């Protein structure tokens, strides 16, 4: 993955997208092999990697009885920011993500879309070099999804993002490069145009079905 790009892991349910993210974040140990983030091994240097990455999991992953500002300050503090720094970062994140008006509201009172937005803000408040977004728009309505896409697009070039999803239109809208994953293996990597060319299809959906389905048949 190149610095500042949005890299999408595309696959059907159970393809291993979340497991891959879990391994890269240090939540699950790989049974074999290794991976390197920012030049550090996820097995040997997890302590050095963790302060430089952040994760926005599949679920909303917020503290429900804490206010929006408290959630942000908590994560900033956990990643080592002082009280003053955390306060400033939280205010900046509130402004950037349009959460200022609800800053004192408890997280559980927010709509699903707003909670997702908060979740991503919590992922970004620590200024990570790599941000993992695990199916960030799952369960959201079309408006909330579009809104979140705009937020993620705005991060392009600033943060390296590994995005997992099984929504093809999301990949088309956001990803610089795409990896298609089937049964825990990456079977194709490239830009949207490269994948279409590789599969000989005109749309990502057809290309995905051909590449992923073909592999399944072989398996």
């Amino acid at each position, binding site marked *: 993955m190149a610095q500042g790009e949005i890299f999408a892991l595309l696959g059907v349910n159970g393809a291993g997208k979340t497991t891959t993210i*879990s391994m890269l*974040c*240090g*939540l699950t140990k790989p049974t074999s092999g290794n991976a390197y983030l920012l030049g550090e091994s996820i097995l040997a240097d997890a*302590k050095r990697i*963790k*302060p430089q*990455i*952040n*994760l*926005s*999991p*599949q*679920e*909303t*992953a*917020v*503290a*429900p*009885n*804490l206010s929006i500002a*408290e959630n942000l300050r*908590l*994560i900033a*503090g*956990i*990643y*080592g920011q002082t009280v003053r720094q955390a306060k400033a970062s939280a205010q900046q994140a509130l402004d950037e993500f349009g959460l200022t008006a609800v800053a004192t509201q*408890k997280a559980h009172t927010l709509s699903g879309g707003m909670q997702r937005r908060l979740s991503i803000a*919590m992922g970004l408040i620590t200024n990570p070099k790599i941000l*993992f977004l695990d199916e960030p728009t799952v369960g959201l309505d079309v408006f909330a999804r579009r809104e979140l896409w705009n937020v993620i697009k705005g991060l392009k070039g600033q943060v390296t993002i590994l995005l997992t999803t099984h929504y093809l239109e999301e990949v088309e809208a956001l990803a610089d490069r795409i990896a298609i994953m089937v049964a825990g293996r990456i079977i194709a990597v490239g830009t949207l145009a490269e994948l279409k060319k590789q599969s000989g299809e005109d749309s990502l959906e057809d290309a995905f079905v051909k590449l992923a389905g073909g592999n399944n048949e072989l398996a």
Partner: protein
Amino acid sequence: MSWHRTWLFARRTMKEIMRDPVNLFFGLAFLMLLLWALSLIYKQVGQIPGAATISSDELAAAIAAYAPVFVSLFSGMLIAKDRTSSFLARLFASPMTAADFILGYSLPMLVVALAQSLVTFLFARLFGASDRRAHVAWGDCGFADGAHVHGDKPAVRHADEQQGRGWCVRRDAHDNRVHSLRGHGADPDHGVDIPGYREGITVLQCRAVRCSGRWGRLRENLASFMDRDCVCRGVLACRSHRVRSAQTQCEPVVAGIPEEYMQGRDITIWAPHSRHMAM
């Protein structure tokens, strides 16, 4: 481990607990309700001659010991919630260590448990006051003139467990002279024949006796008693309800200490919080 992270996470845990109305109800309000309800129940039980009862202090101690059950419930629920919402996964991906998690979850629970105990004992003080009122009422068997017996010398209540009878003796607060008698239970309300009591006699009162040394603490006046000749004796008994020693407390001593109160004998205890219990 980082104390800063632990502190932040512990604060978050505390806020999550304290901001949940269900936790507040079961963590604090329910304990008070329980204390209040059990106090009422035991107050009623104390009216029954021969019934075993429990003091409000003991009740408070029991509830304070029971309260951490809710704390463990809260922590279990919070961890489950954090898991299902993936908040825990987010924290696992952060620089937090195992020690940060353990302390961050457990320290606030300790604080909550201590707060529960404090609140329980503070409330027990209130109910303890009502216990004292109840005690006076307990001695007041409803004399016809409606007078209340108060102070350190309430009416003496006797009970005869074998015959299921109980009675009260109303004394003068200054000279301990018996003014009137009243019985209930199997006895008729009037013309009672209460062993050891008749109008006009002076009631001597046993002094509190205490265990000391290796025998441990005593339930005060656990087994002080009066006999029918108005001779007062004290029996020293410790928590095991076993008589450790027996001695007379005041004169004149007409008879020796009855065999049932000799050293090593088990005694039945009822209404142990009574200051004027007779057996």
